[in-house]
């Protein structure tokens, strides 16, 4: 009975459904993730926009910065920046602008916010990408080495230095790196972002390292424990007993499975990188988004603050959505779970 049921049920449409089900499920999952992504960004935009009214101080007074205001000028400037409209209308104007890449006008730079941000973007992207590479390479290397050398003095040394690194705030790292490599050894410049691609990379070595230090420690520790967990699994034992080379075991069986937790942590790190970059940019005199955010908050330059916060929130949520979507692709167990192969 049971057998015939199983046999008959798929018969009406076995061909399109069998391969279709996992894809449909995947699409459904993706659609859900993307839907919640859009919803999160929308809610953030509302919070980001209206939080301005919670901050004391009038942006117009900032615009006039200590000069005797002419009442007509105040009225004009208020109208130019759209501050005379009701908040809801201002929100609608802003959010429809954002969709087309128009974030309004910066009060401090008297320039389009999108231009101000695009000017700063290369430095911050350079910083985050270089830090990301350093974190991935050094963090993974340290974690893999420690897990392979488990229990030895080298493992303990790596764990100890990881704990030390994790405790170093990025501004302390920046000061030490400037003192040693810029002032004492003169190997790297102490400020600025240079001109041209290679010069920028050269200028960003120390700042990226300062930014990466504590994150290298986090990724290193997560990698080590994820690797150890995988080493203890049966399929690794099986692979080893079947005579697979140790390198292949590590890469194909251990690291691949350990990537899930590492990826999850890395997604969260992106937000941390964007936040910490403000401090590093300040220390190295870099004109990036972080230092721009700090000065904009201070100067009540709310169009810039709103734009940066929205961009960071969107980037953060997008990366985490991507990690969620990539998870099943990378993790072979999730694929295997579908029972097809």
């Amino acid at each position: 009975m049971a057998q015939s049921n199983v046999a008959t049920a798929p018969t009406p449409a076995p061909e399109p459904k069998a391969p279709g089900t996992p894809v449909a499920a995947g699409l459904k999952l993706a659609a859900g993730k993307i839907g919640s992504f859009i919803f999160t960004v929308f809610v953030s935009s509302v919070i980001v926009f209206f939080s301005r009214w919670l901050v004391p101080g009038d942006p117009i007074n900032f615009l006039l910065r200590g000069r005797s205001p002419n009442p007509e000028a105040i009225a004009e400037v208020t109208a130019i920046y759209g501050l005379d409209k009701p908040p809801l209308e201002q929100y609608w104007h802003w959010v429809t602008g954002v969709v087309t890449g128009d974030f309004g006008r910066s009060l401090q730079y008297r320039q389009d916010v999108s231009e101000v941000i695009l000017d700063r973007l290369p430095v911050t992207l350079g910083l985050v990408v270089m830090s990301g590479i350093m974190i991935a390479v050094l963090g993974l290397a340290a974690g893999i080495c420690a897990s392979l050398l488990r229990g030895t003095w080298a493992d303990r040394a790596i764990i100890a230095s990881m704990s030390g690194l994790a405790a170093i705030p990025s501004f302390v790292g920046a000061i030490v790196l400037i003192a040693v490599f810029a002032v004492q050894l003169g190997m790297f410049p102490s400020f600025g972002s240079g001109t041209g691609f290679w010069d920028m990379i050269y200028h960003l070595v120390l700042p990226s390292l300062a930014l990466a230090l504590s994150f290298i420690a986090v990724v290193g520790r997560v990698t080590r424990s994820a690797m150890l967990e995988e080493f203890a699994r049966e399929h690794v034992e099986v692979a080893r007993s079947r005579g697979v080379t140790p390198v292949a075991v590590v890469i194909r069986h251990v690291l691949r499975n350990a990537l899930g937790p590492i990826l999850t942590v890395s997604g969260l790190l992106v937000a941390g990188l964007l936040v910490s970059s403000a401090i590093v940019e300040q220390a190295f005199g870099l004109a990036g988004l972080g230092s721009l955010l700090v000065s904009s908050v201070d100067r009540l330059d709310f169009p810039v603050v709103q734009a940066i916060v929205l961009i960071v929130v969107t980037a953060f949520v997008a990366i985490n959505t991507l990690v969620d979507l990539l998870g099943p692709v990378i993790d072979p167990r999730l694929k295997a779970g579908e029972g097809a192969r």
Partner: protein
Amino acid sequence: MKTKNFNTKSLKLAAAAAVVLSLTACGGASPQAGAVAPTYELTEKTAAPTGELDKLSWSLYAEPYSLDYAYAFDFPDNQVLANTCESLLRLNPDMSVSPGLATKFENPTPTTWVYTIRENVKFHDGSTMGADDVVASLKRHLDPAVGSFWYSAFANVKSIKKTSTNQVTVTTTKPDAILNESLSGAPGVIESAAFLKKAGGDYGNANGGVNCTGPFELKDWRSGEKLSFERFDGYWDTKNAAKAKELEFVVMTDPVARVNAFKSGEIDGGWMPPANAIGELDASGAGKVYFGTNSAVQSLIVTNTQGPLGNPEVRKALLMSIDRTGLVAAAEAGYAKRTNALSAESVWGAADEATQQAAFGELTDYPYDVEAAAKIIQEQGVAGQEITITTAPMGNNFAVVAQATAAAAESIGLKAVINTVTPNAYTALFSDPEARKGTDLVYTNWYLSIGDPLEMFSILRTGDFSNYGNFSDAAYDKTVNEALGTLDTDKRFAKSARAQKILNEDLPWLPLYEVPTILWMNDKITGASPSVNHLYYPWAAQIGAK
């Protein structure tokens, strides 16, 4: 009771002295600064350069907000702007005024100013300057859509008209003594009318840039990091043509990074290095620190007249409780001069000697006397009341002044709270009445843009925007208004001396000390005049190789 009082007082005195002494020690410039102030001489002009420079790199402590002259009102904005955009008149190192883009100015009636425009002056784009450009440039200050920060300088202006091909006439509704002199600064900057029209809302920002007549031409503005200029070969004033082929302003907000860059030679020079680093810089042997004329007075603005400081007697007592000589040593490493006036002596250069003597010699001194000050506090019945001093981490002097003032207030029986805000929030105190709520005292370095103290006195008239404590005195308002309408220099300065005396009696702001303009140049360069006029004079053009 008496003994207890005495004991607490001496304890507080000791605490105040300890604060000043320990802060002096922190300053690090000179260990005995409390006792012996370092001597410094004012330099009028540094040695003439012997050659050209490929590149002159200069530090800025903050980025200019804009290079639009209508919004240039702070040190970084004007230091940069002065080298690329020029005014109708020129402000000299001694604060006197001479011809600039106007070859002469005449004053045929009390309400008419006629400017003859210099011929054959080129803008950076190669076009020739004419009367239309002058009219368009000046008229912007009257345009509400521009919202010029210099609007008040033009408050009495009725019309600005081209009266011949090379002549512009400005008429005012009533005689205005300082309008003409204002045209030596940012209010008088001349920009090409066509460029203004083309750049529109982007004029003066990192995108739109500027197109003026100065010795340097803007090439690139990397927002947040640096501004690059090139020598302008078509510059009209061939005698003052730039000696450096390139000029680069690097934004360095961190004072330690700035001093390091000076010492290592990464940056050639900078205005106003931190006073507590002067000893260190001099000792480095990498260059030299110069001192020059300044138009600034460091003072404490009383921002709240509802609190105990609303009472002039209490203000006097507070000023008497501050050891201003000690403060000069602690806050400025000795590189300053104690004062009782709210205007610097340098802005009285146009007055005759007798008037200068009257303006400064007849002022009441408020000697350091804690006992007498404490007695006043008791008599006025404000003992135990609280004052809030708002400060920001903007340098050693800010910290020292705030702490010394708090200690001084405590030493005479007031309670003092120090409220530290961010540098930009501090800037907001000067424009936003909301931001000033809850603050009684704010330290300021208030400089004047012209060689006339009326620029200072006019802001303390009843209802003026910068009259932060709402000081109001009918006799004072009358004196200042009369002076502003008096075109005769001697008579005007005599009235100004009276205004200065009233401020000295009433103390709406507490005068502390005058600092010189400080300039650092490394040993590769020379030529600048270390004067506050660097805000309005193309000073970088004078610098060349040593």
